[in-house]
Structure formats: C-alpha cells, structure tokens
C-alpha cells in the first residue's frame, strides 16, 4: 500500500520533527494563536510527499490548537480576571478587617479586665479579691483567641493570594483578560439581595453622624 500523499515539487529530506523544532525556537512562548500558524508554516515548508504519520501528526497539532483556542474562549467567557481583580482583593480586605476588629475588641475587653484587677487590689486579702482575680485570669486566657484566629486568618489570606497568583498566570497564558468574553447580563433593577452586603470596611463605611445627616436630608 502506498503510504504517502503526493505533493508537487521535489521531495525534501528534512525530517518533520526538526522543522517543528525550528519553528518552536522562533516562537518560544506558548501563544495559542500561533499553533495554527505553526501548522500552516510547517505545511508551507513541506515540499515533498507527506507520510501518513506526518499527516496524522499535523492533524493532531491542528486539533490541539483548536482545543486551546476553545479553552481560551471559555476562560475569557468565565471572566476569571474578575476573581483576581475584585473577588480575592475583596475577600482579603474583609479578612483583614476581621483581624482589626477582633484586635480592637480584645483590647477593649483587656482594658476592662485591667480595671477589674485594680479593683481586686483595692480589696486585697479578701475572698472578693480571689474571685475577681480568678475571673480576670479566665478572661485573659480566653482573649488569646485573637492571636489564634488572627494567625488562622493570615493563613487563609496567604492561600487566597497564591490562588490569585495562579489564576493570574492562567489568565496571562491564555490572554483571557478583561472583556474578551461575554459579560454576564447586568441587573437593571437592584434586588433585595443586592442590598444585603453585610458590614462595610471602615474606609468605605458611613459612620453614625453620616447616617444622621442623610436621614435629616429627607426632612
């Protein structure tokens, strides 16, 4: 059986693998759009007969190119850049705020505890002193939660940041950044769910006096 596809022109002795290697050296970075280009370039350098093996290899390379292009389009449509641009920074800011709030609350508790200790000193030698001190000791012990939870949250933030870096890498590799894909439909009318955002970060939040002013502006 004849296993070559006849092509015009004299046959070349260049092995396909070497030509692919040369082309790869020309485009060292993984550029998905280049895959089809590579296939075309390889085809254009072929001047002899293609073996069945070569044809099959080229078909596979072309299929691979199509798969990558399709993956790229799907990633763009998912708008993964939003994860790194908005979702993860938002999540880490919220977690940082939790650490700040628990620290501030813990200091407030400790301050009251120190006052109780001072009161205990005023009644030194009595049963009340012992009871007060036992109670404050338990509060001091419990307050170490702030350190423990803080460390756990820091670990979560580190994990989020490494996820962010990996997603960034994927987005960069596939060129799926911003707006190439189909954006999800924008809600025209805010639903109640849009109003339920939980506590705001201090930098963006209104304080009570702002709220009072806003309410007064309706009068």
């Amino acid at each position: 059986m004849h296993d070559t596809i006849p092509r015009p022109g004299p046959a070349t002795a260049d092995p396909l693998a070497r030509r692919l290697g040369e082309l790869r050296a020309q485009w060292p970075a993984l550029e998905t759009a280049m895959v089809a280009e590579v296939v075309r370039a390889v085809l254009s350098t072929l001047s002899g007969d293609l073996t069945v093996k070569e044809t099959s290899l080229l078909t596979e390379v072309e299929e691979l190119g199509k798969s990558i292009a399709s993956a790229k389009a799907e990633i763009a449509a998912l708008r993964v850049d939003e994860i790194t641009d908005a979702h993860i920074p938002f999540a880490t800011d919220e977690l940082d705020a939790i650490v700040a709030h628990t620290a501030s609350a813990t200091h407030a508790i400790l301050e009251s505890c120190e006052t109780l200790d001072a009161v205990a000193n005023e009644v030194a030698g009595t049963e009340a002193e012992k009871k007060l001190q036992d109670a404050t000791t338990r509060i001091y012990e419990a307050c170490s939660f702030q350190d423990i939870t803080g460390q756990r949250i820091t670990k979560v933030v580190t994990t989020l940041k490494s996820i962010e870096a990996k997603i960034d890498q994927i987005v960069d590799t596939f060129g799926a950044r911003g707006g190439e894909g189909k954006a999800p439909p924008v809600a025209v009318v805010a639903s109640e769910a849009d109003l339920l955002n939980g506590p705001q970060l201090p930098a963006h939040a209104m304080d009570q006096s702002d709220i009072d002013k806003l309410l007064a502006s309706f009068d």
Partner: protein
Amino acid sequence: MAIDKSMNVLIVDDYKTMLRIIRNLLKQIEFNNVEEASDGADALAKLRAGSFGLVISDWNMAPMTGLQLLQEVRADSRLKNTPFIMITAESKTENVVAAKQAGVSNYIVKPFNAETLRDKIEKVLGHA
C-alpha cells in the same frame, strides 16, 4: 529555690493583644518588671542593652523569628544562660524538637492557661 519575682522579664510577640495578656498574667503572679518586644530583632536589641532574668517569646514573627532569637541568645556569651520559654501556636513535633535543639528552656502551646504559664515559669526559674 525561691524565685526572684523582681527580675526583668522580656515578653516577645507580634500580637499586641498577646503581649497585653501575658503582661497581665505575669502581673497576677507578681512579676511586675515586664518589658515588651514585637519581634526577634527588637527583642535581641533589648536583651543586649539590658539585663533580663527570663525571656518569654512567640515563634512566628518577622523579620526575626522566635527560634532565630533563641539561637542568637544561646550564641551570645553574655545572654546564653538566660531562661527562654517559647509560647507559640506551632505545635508540631518537629517544632518542639527544633526549639529544644536550639536550647529552649520550655515550650508552651497557644492557647494556654495561666496555670501552665505559672508552672513553666516556676520550673524554668527553679532550675536556672
């Protein structure tokens, strides 16, 4: 052996709340001369400049960790015999082994209670 509670104690932690907690717990057991440092480097500078009878340090701090601080203390001819208690959330066996190899006097895992702190201090200072 009677413990001299008037000695200077250096407490080291990057969490201000933890420094405040340890300071208050020490006060309850009548250690009133307590100084604070927020990381290993800060602590080492204070140790070299002053005179401390006990160091109670966290491990996980930057730029110098508690373990590095311990190693520096043990390598310093003037500070090498200072009792050193590590109080940390790191509770893996390899952590405790590393601290022991570096010459830690005792090791308390967070969260801890006042009784543990008092017991370890008595143990460490009793053998100092």
